[in-house]
């Protein structure tokens, strides 16, 4: 393979990988912004959505687009149910972010093992039919699922930006993000805003999970691995900023792909982690973030 072709393929792969990181990160940061805790079970929703599509489309032979639609809806419902049953209760008991984080970890473990109980630990393939040649873009190749990932990421990013900056709901979410108590005083229902954030954020997690499932297949650990990269993207982008998350996700994709070419592949995770550490050391508020107030004064 000649130099130019290789580099265009690397960049294209970086775009694809970066888009998945950014999708996961945007959903994560949308929930983190008003709820203010690390929602680990987000990873569980990613996995569950993928397996739901598998169950419906492959096991019950439903139409693929119908299954995707139902799975997305169920993912959003699942996230909202978590908020209603667990996190809302914890907030009412004045549970700190750390308590919610541990509860969320518990949910992640439950979902992950429930999946492995029902479907087993083997890799499941969702993509129907033979492997397609893929589209030719310049000198590089991309499959239609991968193209879908890139386009979906752009669409989701635009929709969320629109939602946050041009609608009443987004205005409320941003108000709660800035200062929940003040927002409450101004008559915004904080509980409702957080529920909405969980609903939308979990739907985005569902989208990410389904796309990853179509692209590389399903394992029970899928969501956890995706979540880690998404969190790295969200933190290094400035955790409450979707634009920053997307930029950081794409940047992360580029760095990971280039390093995958330079270094043995088993070090990929280590590289992501090094980037995270560098950001935390040098620019803890992330690319586009404002410094977070760690505590109410």
């Amino acid at each position: 393979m000649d130099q130019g072709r290789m580099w265009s393929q690397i960049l294209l792969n970086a775009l694809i990988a970066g888009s998945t990181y950014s999708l996961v990160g945007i959903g994560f940061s949308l929930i983190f912004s008003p709820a203010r805790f690390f929602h680990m079970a987000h990873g569980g929703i990613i996995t569950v959505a993928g397996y739901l599509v598998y169950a419906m489309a492959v096991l019950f032979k439903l139409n693929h687009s119908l299954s995707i639609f139902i799975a997305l809806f169920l993912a959003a419902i699942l996230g909202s149910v978590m908020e209603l049953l667990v996190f809302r209760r914890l907030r009412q008991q004045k549970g700190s972010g750390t308590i919610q984080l541990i509860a969320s970890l518990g949910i992640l473990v439950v979902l992950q093992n429930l999946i492995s109980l029902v479907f087993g630990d083997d890799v499941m393939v969702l993509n129907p039919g033979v492997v397609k040649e893929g589209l030719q873009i310049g000198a590089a190749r991309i499959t239609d699922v991968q193209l879908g990932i890139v386009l979906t990421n752009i669409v989701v990013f635009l929709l969320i930006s629109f939602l946050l900056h041009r609608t009443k709901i987004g205005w409320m979410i941003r108000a709660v993000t800035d200062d929940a108590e003040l927002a409450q005083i101004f008559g915004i229902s904080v509980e409702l805003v957080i529920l909405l954030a969980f609903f939308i954020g979990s739907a985005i997690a569902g989208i990410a999970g389904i796309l990853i499932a179509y692209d590389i297949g399903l394992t029970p650990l899928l969501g956890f691995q995706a979540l880690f990269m998404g969190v790295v993207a969200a933190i290094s982008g400035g955790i409450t900023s979707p634009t920053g998350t997307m930029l950081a996700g794409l940047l992360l994709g580029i760095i990971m792909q280039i390093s995958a070419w330079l270094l043995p592949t088993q070090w990929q995770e280590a590289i992501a982690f090094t980037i995270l550490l560098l950001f935390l050391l040098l620019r803890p508020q992330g690319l586009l973030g404002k410094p977070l107030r760690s505590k109410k004064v």
Partner: protein
Amino acid sequence: MVGYLVFLTISAGLFAIFALGLNLQWGFTGLINFGHVAFMTVGAYTTVLLSSVGVPLIIAVILGGAIASVLGLAIGLSTLRLREDYLAIVTIGVSELIRLIALNEEWLTRGAFGVQRFPLPLGNYEPGLMGKIIIIGLLTLVGIFALTQLWLGLKNQWREATNIKGKSYQPKKPISIVIWGTIGFALIMTIYINGCIALSNYNYKAGLMLLVLLTLALIYWGLELLVKSPWGRVLKAIREDEEIPRALGKNVFWYKLQAFMLGGAIAGIAGAFYAWQLTTVFPSNFEPLVTFNAWTMVVLGGAGSNAGSLLGVIIFWAYDALTRFYLPRLGWFDSSQLGAFRIMVIGLILMILMVWRPQGILGKKEELTLGK
């Protein structure tokens, strides 16, 4: 049966050491360490690799703990100044990174093949009559220590139950204290008598059991002294609200760092025992699940209480042994499903605990980091 109980005692003992380290970090200082297994990995590999090139075991273990605490220093310096949940994600990352290093740096750790045939403590020890009397005497000392601790703990509980100040105390029924006491006494006696039988027919595992129990008793004693000292009170104050000790002129960051490093060192020592119990060390022994189990033990027993952590460990291993034994008989699941099911139940317990009783069994509600 004796052999199996010895195995359970070693496992519970080394996990108790491990959980005590986590309890110092999370229970007393409020640091979320989701990568506790990283310290264990470092401790285990350091001990095993050093001792197999001829370093005396005791020095190897101390170095293992020291290097684990240096890892704590590195993590702490970079993250302890930030929001507390950033520590969670960084420690997850570190534990994966350490496991990757163990898996891939074959020149150092022999990778997936694992480290085999390393020196074991008291590996070739064959006690005569005098030796046996000494080791059983040591076990008796540990047993007496455990009984006094149980007695003191129960006496405290009794005083609280009969002496209700204000309305915030939930009155405990004295009868439950008697039941707990009986269970605790029976448990200690079972372990003690079983230990004596095992030690009199001495084999390697019995010796290891004695070492684990001795170390556990020492660490427990040390930690109890520490957390009741002024140093420990500062840690608790940091957990409650770090602005207050800061206003009183305490260097909060430095205290957090000390707690994090000390907890890491304790986990490193637990790692050495883990390696000696396994007798072959593979990277796959140090999965994130180990951290998760330790969290369950600490949270279940009651964060911020050393005795609670021990209780959590005992309940966890009882659960582990019982489900390992009885669940297959039901015939609901095949073996891989069984593992998933057992972990799922633990996750469920952790979630329900957080909602219904975040202070755990022995924790105090008014001592928990709730309002922030």
